[in-house]
C-alpha cells in the first residue's frame, strides 16, 4: 500500500528507502564523540601510531573550530547523538558468495551485481563503515593499480598513504574535515602508477543504513605522471525519520600530465546532512575533472576544488543539483589558478521545485603571476514553481591582469511555449516537463557513464512526478 505523506509524496516511490535490521553489527561505538571513541576506532582497526595521533590531533582541531554560520543551517545537527563507528561484519567479502545475506539483499536492490556484470572493472561498496565487497579486475592489479577501501589501503600501502594522507585537505581546513579526519572509516584508496590508463571506471557504492549513523568515509586518489583514472561514486541511503550526517573527505593528487575524473551522484535520503570536502591538486599539464550530481539529502554543502599548482594544469567542474520540498542544495566549486597558463571551466545547473532551494556557490581565485590563465564559469538555474528558490554566490578574486575570466548566469522557468510544443505532439504534461528538465541538465548527464546517466534521469523523473497539474 502506498504511504502518502502530508506533502503528497508517495514514499513508496523512494525505491531505495528500504533498510535491513541493524542487529547484525559486529561492533558499534557508543553515541557521541570523545577521545575514547576515537582511540577505540583506531585500536579496532589496528592502525599505526601515526594515524592514531593524527586522529586525536584532528579531534582537537574539531573541538576548537566553531560551527560554520554560512551556507546552510548546520546548527540542527546533534553531534552528540551520532554513532561515529559501526562495523557490520567481520572481514571483507572477496567474492559475492562471501557477502552476508542481508547485505547482499541490499546490494541486489541497488543493482550492484548487475553493475558488475556490465564489465565494471571494480566494485567497492561501502555498507556502513566497512567495505564488505570488493573486487578488481586482474589486469589492473597486474599493472600496479590499487583500488582498495581506505582501511586496507592504509594496511597494505602504509608508505603511500602516509605520504599523501591529509596533504590536500588538512584537518585545519574546516570543522567537518577535522571531524572526518578524527573518525574516518572506509572510503576508497586508488593508486595509479605512471603512464597507466584505467579505461573502465572504478565504481563504489556508498550507503548509510543505521539511524543516527554518521558516515565519514575518506578517499585518497593518487595518479602518477601520465596516468588516467575515472572514479565513480554513487550514494543512496534509506529514508529515516531522524537526521543523519555524512561528512566525507576526498583528496586527489594529479601529477604531471595525468588526468583524473571523479563522478558522484548522491541521492541521500531527505534527512541527511551531506557536508563534504573534496579537493584535488593538479600539477604540470594535469587535468582534474569533477562531475557532481546532488539529488538527495536535507542539506548538501559541497564545493569540489582544484588547485592548479603548475603551468598547463586544467580543471573542469560540472555540477547538477535538484532540490525538492525541504531540501537545500548548496553545491558549487572552487578553481584556484596558482600557476601561469592554467585553465578552468565550471558549469553548474540547478533545479528547484516545491519550495526547495538550490544554487551555486563558487570561488575563482587567480594568484598574481598566473599569466595567460583562462576561466569560464556558467551557472544556470531552473525554477519550477513560485515557492522555490535559487541562489548564486560567485566569488572572484583575480590578482593577475593577463587572464581571461568569464562568468555567465541564467535563471529561468519552464516556458509555456516549450510545454505546449511538446504536448502538441501527444506527449503528456508530466513527461513534457521531465523532458525539458532532462534537456536542461543534459550538458552534465552526457558526461556520466551510461548507466549513471540513465539513473540520474530516472531519479529526476521520480522527483518530478506530481510536480505539475
Amino acid at each position, binding site marked *: 500500500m502506498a504511504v502518502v505523506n502530508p506533502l503528497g509524496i508517495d514514499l513508496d516511490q523512494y525505491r531505495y528507502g528500504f533498510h535491513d535490521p541493524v542487529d547484525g553489527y559486529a561492533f558499534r561505538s557508543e553515541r557521541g564523540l570523545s577521545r575514547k571513541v576515537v582511540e577505540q576506532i583506531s585500536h579496532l582497526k589496528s592502525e599505526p601510531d601515526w594515524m592514531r595521533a593524527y586522529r586525536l590531533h584532528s579531534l582537537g582541531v574539531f573541538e576548537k573550530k566553531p560551527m560554520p554560520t554560512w551556507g546552510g543551517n548546520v546548527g540542527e545537527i546533534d553531534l552528540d547523538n551520532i554513532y561515529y563507528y559501526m562495523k557490520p561484519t567481520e572481514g571483507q567479502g572477496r567474492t559475492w558468495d562471501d557477502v552476508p545475506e542481508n547485505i547482499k539483499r541490499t546490494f541486489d536492490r541497488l543493482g550492484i551485481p548487475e553493475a558488475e556484470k556490465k564489465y565494471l572493472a571494480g566494485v567497492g561498496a561501502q555498507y556502513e563503515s566497512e567495505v564488505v565487497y570488493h573486487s578488481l579486475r586482474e589486469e589492473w592489479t597486474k599493472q600496479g593499480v590499487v583500488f582498495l577501501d581506505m582501511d586496507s589501503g592504509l594496511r597494505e600501502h602504509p608508505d603511500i598513504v602516509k605520504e599523501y594522507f591529509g596533504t590536500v585537505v588538512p584537518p585545519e581546513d574546516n570543522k567537518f574535515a577535522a571531524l572526518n579526519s578524527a573518525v574516518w572509516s572506509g572510503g576508497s584508496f586508488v593508486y595509479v602508477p605512471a603512464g597507466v590508463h584505467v579505461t573502465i571506471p572504478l565504481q563504489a557504492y556508498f550507503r548509510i543504513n543505521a539511524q543516527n549513523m554518521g558516515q565519514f568515509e575518506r578517499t585518497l586518489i593518487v595518479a602518477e605522471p601520465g596516468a588516467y583514472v575515472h572514479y565513480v561514486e554513487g550514494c543512496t541511503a534509506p529514508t529515516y525519520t531522524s537526521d543523519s550526517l555524512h561528512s566525507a573527505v576526498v583528496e586527489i593528487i594529479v601529477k604531471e600530465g595525468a588526468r583524473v575524473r571523479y563522478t558522484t551522484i548522491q541521492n541521500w535520503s531527505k534527512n541527511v546532512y551531506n557536508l563534504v570536502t573534496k579537493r584535488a591538486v593538479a600539477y604540470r599539464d594535469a587535468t582534474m575533472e569533477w562531475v557532481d550530481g546532488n539529488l538527495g539529502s536535507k542539506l548538501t554543502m559541497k564545493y569540489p576544488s582544484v588547485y592548479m599548482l603548475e603551468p598547463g594544469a586544467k580543471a573542469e567542474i560540472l555540477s547538477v543539483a535538484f532540490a525538492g520540498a525541504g531540501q537545500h542544495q548548496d553545491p558549487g566549486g572552487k578553481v584556484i589558478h596558482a600557476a601561469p597558463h592554467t585553465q578552468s571551466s565550471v558549469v553548474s545547473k540547478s533545479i528547484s521545485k516545491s519550495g526547495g532551494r538550490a544554487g551555486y556557490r563558487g570561488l575563482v581565485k587567480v594568484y598574481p603571476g598566473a599569466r595567460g590563465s583562462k576561466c569560464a564559469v556558467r551557472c544556470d538555474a531552473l525554477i519550477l514553481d513560485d515557492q522555490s528558490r535559487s541562489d548564486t554566490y560567485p566569488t572572484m578574486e583575480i590578482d593577475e591582469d593577463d587572464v581571461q575570466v568569464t562568468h555567465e548566469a541564467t535563471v529561468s522557468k519552464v516556458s509555456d511555449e516549450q510545454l505546449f510544443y511538446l504536448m*502538441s505532439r501527444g506527449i503528456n504534461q508530466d513527461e513534457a516537463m521531465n523532458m525539458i528538465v532532462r534537456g536542461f541538465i543534459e550538458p552534465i548527464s552526457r558526461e556520466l557513464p551510461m548507466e549513471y546517466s540513465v539513473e540520474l534521469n530516472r531519479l529526476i523523473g521520480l522527483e518530478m512526478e506530481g510536480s505539475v497539474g
Partner: protein
Amino acid sequence: MSAELLIKNLWAQVEDKVILKGANLAVRSGEIHALMGPNGSGKTTLAHVLMGNPFYQVIKGEVLYNNEDLLAMAPDDRARKGLFIAFQYPVSIPGVTMASFLRTAVSARRGYEKDHLMSLAEFQKLARAKVEELQVDPAVLGRYVNEGFSGGEKKRAEILQMALLEPEIAIMDETDSGLDVDAVKIVAAGVNRMYEASGKKMGVLVITHYPRILKYIKPTRVHVMFDGRIVTSGDADLAEELDQIGYDGIRAQYERVAAEVVGEGEVRSAGKVFWVQH
C-alpha cells in the same frame, strides 16, 4: 477510419484582443483545404486554438473532432487523437535530441503505455525511412529539438514530425513562409506523399499568405479569412482570383461587414486548465 473537424462559430481572443469572430469551417478525411488571408486576419490564431495553446482563450463557439468536444481536451489528447499542427515558429528544446523527442511522441501517438516506448530499433528504422523520404539530413535526429535550426530546417523538421505522427487531420501554419521555391517544392512533395500514403484519407488544412504553395499542393477548397471570419470559399480557382485582386480587394469588399460584428459572451478556456501556475 474517417475523421472530421468541425469548427462552428468560433470566437477567440488573445490577451484582451478578440481575434476570431465567428469562424466556421469543416475539414474531413481526404480533403485538402487552403486557408488564406491577410496578416492579422486570424489564421494562425485559429490554428493555435485548434491545438489548444493556452495563450489563446475561446470566447464562444464549438469545435468537434470526430464528434467529440475538441476544446475540452488538453493539447496532448488532441495530438494523440490524430490532430497535428506544423508550426510557423517552432520553439527549441535545448538538450533534448530530435530522436528522443520523436520516439516519445510517436510512442504516445501510437498508444504506448506510460513509461514504455516503442523499441529503439523499430523507431530508428521508421525514422530513417521518413528522413530519406523527405530528403532531410539524417543528422537532424541527433540535434537538439529546433536548436540552432535555420528557418528552412525548422519547417522541414515540422514536416518530418508530421510524417512520423501520421495525423488524421494536419494543419500547416504558413509552412511555406520564409522558404525558397525549391524548399517549398520539397515540403509540398512531402505532404503530397503523406496524403497518398494515407490512401488519400488524411485531411489537410494549409494556412498560407501566398498562393505559391498551392501550385504544388492542390486544394479541394480554398477559404479566405478576413477579420476573424471566413468571408468567402471556393474551389482552387479562388486562389488564382485572389492572386489577381490581392488582399486589398478582399479588404474593400468585406470591411463593412466586419465592422458590424461585436464580440460577446463569456471566456471559455482553450483547453481544460492544465498549465503550471507560475
